[in-house]
């Protein structure tokens, strides 16, 4: 315990000595100040402590959408953009030299010659490296918690869920950073490989997301086309039962059937092609850490509390929350293909699909990846002659 405590105190001193730690903290403070400047009154929403005011029928003091917006700004923009991107880049830069310096000649000798096992030393040092993010996010969340409490009149403890989520998210990347740092003993290599890995993850997840988007769009199109075909056939049957249809009607109906059938076949073919690519990419993303999904859990948990997420606002669902089938049934296939409702429905189904993945799977499988990378780094550390 004495040894672990000493390593943690040392890690704190190390962070304390880094200017980036304080710069990140200062920016976080500014973000909290700006976040706290958003307020709601009877007529709408104000920003920068009343400097700007936007009138809104739906987003104003006392409405549920005001809460959705305020919490959504935190979970989607502040956590999603600041903590999970900008602050994480600063954190990686700050912590990237921890292990290369730790295993440098003359430094590691002093530590390994103490009565502490290599594995225990490595684990403790690894955990202490997460202090940067842990401390930053904790301080940040306290600020946000106070803002939400003071602005919304509710003390939302869920805000603190960002602490483990962002820390775990960072730890996925940190494991790669530590592996490269331990193996190469080069801070620059560790930084470059970690950033490359992160952007690759981002690219993979983006590709997977776009494919899912296209796939859902194609499925919706096929559903709409099938309904169109049924409708055209039904109309044809109706007309045939009542009277002898004219040749012109028959020709127009036949052309309509051809157009819709061809479009449906094309969409089927496109869907098959998408499936061919989506499968392998899905397997790869299953094996890799789910950075976006991990951060996305915060939005999901807030939504479970509030019923709607900020995405619902973006889809324009404030006026009339949609039913499951409304979008498909409202239009025929042709209109649906280019309609705004199509995008809204795709977004809604994607959100539903994302929400269907359990938090245990998202975090568990990501931690599984981290455990493998960590294990490899620990093995190198324990076996190496320094």
């Amino acid at each position, binding site marked *: 315990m004495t040894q672990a405590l000493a390593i943690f105190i040392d890690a704190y001193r190390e962070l304390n000595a880094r200017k980036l730690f304080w710069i990140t903290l200062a920016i976080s403070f500014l973000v909290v100040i700006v976040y706290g400047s958003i307020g709601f009154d009877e007529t709408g929403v104000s920003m920068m402590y009343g400097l700007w005011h936007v009138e809104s029928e739906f987003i104003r003091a006392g409405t549920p959408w005001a809460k959705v917006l305020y919490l959504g700004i935190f979970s989607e923009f502040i956590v999603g953009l600041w903590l999970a991107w900008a602050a994480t880049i600063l954190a990686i830069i700050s912590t990237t030299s921890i292990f290369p310096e730790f295993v440098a*000649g003359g430094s590691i000798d002093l530590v390994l010659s103490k009565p502490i096992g290599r594995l225990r030393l490595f684990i403790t040092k690894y955990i202490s490296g997460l202090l940067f993010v842990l401390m930053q996010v904790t301080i940040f969340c306290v600020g946000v918690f106070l803002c939400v409490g003071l602005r919304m009149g509710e003390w939302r403890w869920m805000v603190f869920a960002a602490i483990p989520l962002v820390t775990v998210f960072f730890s996925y990347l940190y494991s790669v950073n530590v592996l490269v740092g331990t193996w190469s003993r080069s801070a620059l290599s560790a930084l470059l490989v970690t950033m490359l890995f992160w952007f690759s993850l981002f690219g993979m997840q983006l590709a997977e997301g776009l494919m899912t988007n296209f796939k859902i769009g194609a499925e919706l199109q096929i559903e709409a086309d099938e309904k169109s075909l049924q409708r055209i056939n039904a109309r044809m049957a109706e007309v045939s039962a009542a009277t002898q249809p004219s040749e012109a009607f028959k020709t127009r109906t036949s052309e309509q059937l051809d157009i819709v059938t061809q479009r449906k076949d094309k969409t089927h073919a496109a869907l098959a092609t998408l499936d061919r690519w989506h499968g392998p990419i899905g397997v790869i993303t299953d094996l890799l850490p789910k950075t976006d999904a991990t951060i996305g859990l915060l939005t999901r948990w807030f939504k479970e509390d509030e019923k709607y997420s900020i995405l619902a606002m973006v889809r324009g669902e404030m006026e009339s929350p949609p039913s499951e089938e409304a979008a498909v049934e409202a239009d025929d296939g042709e209109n649906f293909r280019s309609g705004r409702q199509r995008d809204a429905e795709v977004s809604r189904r994607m959100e539903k699909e994302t929400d269907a993945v359990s938090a245990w799977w998202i975090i568990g499988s990501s931690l599984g990846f981290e455990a493998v990378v960590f294990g490899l780094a620990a093995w190198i550390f324990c076996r190496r002659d320094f």
Partner: protein
Amino acid sequence: MTVAHANGDFAIDLRNVEKMYRGKVHALRGVAMRVHRGEIFGLLGPNGAGKSTLVKIMMTVVHPTRAEGTLLGRPVGHKPTLGKVGYLPEHHRFPRYLTGRQALGFYAALAKVPGPHRKARAEALLATVGMTDWANKKVSSYSKGMMQRIGIAQTLMNEPDLVVLDEPTDGVDPVGRRDIRDVLVKLKEQGKTVFLNSHLLSELEMVCDRVAIMVQGQVSMQGTMHELTVDSQRYEITIDGAAPEWVGMDDSLRAEPLANDQTKLVLRSAEPGAVQPLIDRLRLHSPPRTIISIRPVRETLEDLFMRAVTDPLTGRSLAPGAKH
């Protein structure tokens, strides 16, 4: 110097220590070495002889290919035993963001020194190494000599039974070197064992009870200075004129002509009694030889070192580094 120790009571007792690095560099080739408790032991050898590898194996920094033996009575590699060992590596690097005092506290905590003892111990050692005034300054501002002083203090924080120092006087000025020597002597007086790895032969000679010389991954020789030099001890007698005809008839006495018509007679013996008959014989010789000087000669550590690193067949220095 004499060291009181029970027979077989070794601080370090190594046998068959081997290390083969990847790339097939055979750094250690069956090293055997014994260090008695309470003595100052010096390890020397040319660059690449395997000294640092041997020290690092003892300190668990390097994994041996094979190692038998004990450190403070426990098998080499036994981690808890390192709590009784103080180690100062060569070119050690303390975290630059720590002050000297913080560094002492940090490494003491890693050595499991209880919290309440750390502060008092640090103060005492800072005073011992003359760093009290610099204790609250960041180590990044320290000179090389200051780093060595803090390094020495760090090795002693856990009140070790065995102190292993790798080039402790590297970069230290003469005053600092004397201070460090004094510390080593005090440690010995307290019954601690000191294992010293240094290139400064004269310093080792001043403080070490026993030495070992490593060459090409093996211990070439080890023992007390007396044991190692007894065969080389001799008397050199300088006389005026040529050597008498009876000189050289015996292996124990030989002559070396000098300039100015003088001759150096070399009598191989460490006993003063052995030289008396020779003096008498020179005086009684006709014509009598004038004795200009008589001096006992013993090999220095440098002589021993040079002898150890010289190939007896070719007379050339052995190639540096470990054998491949």
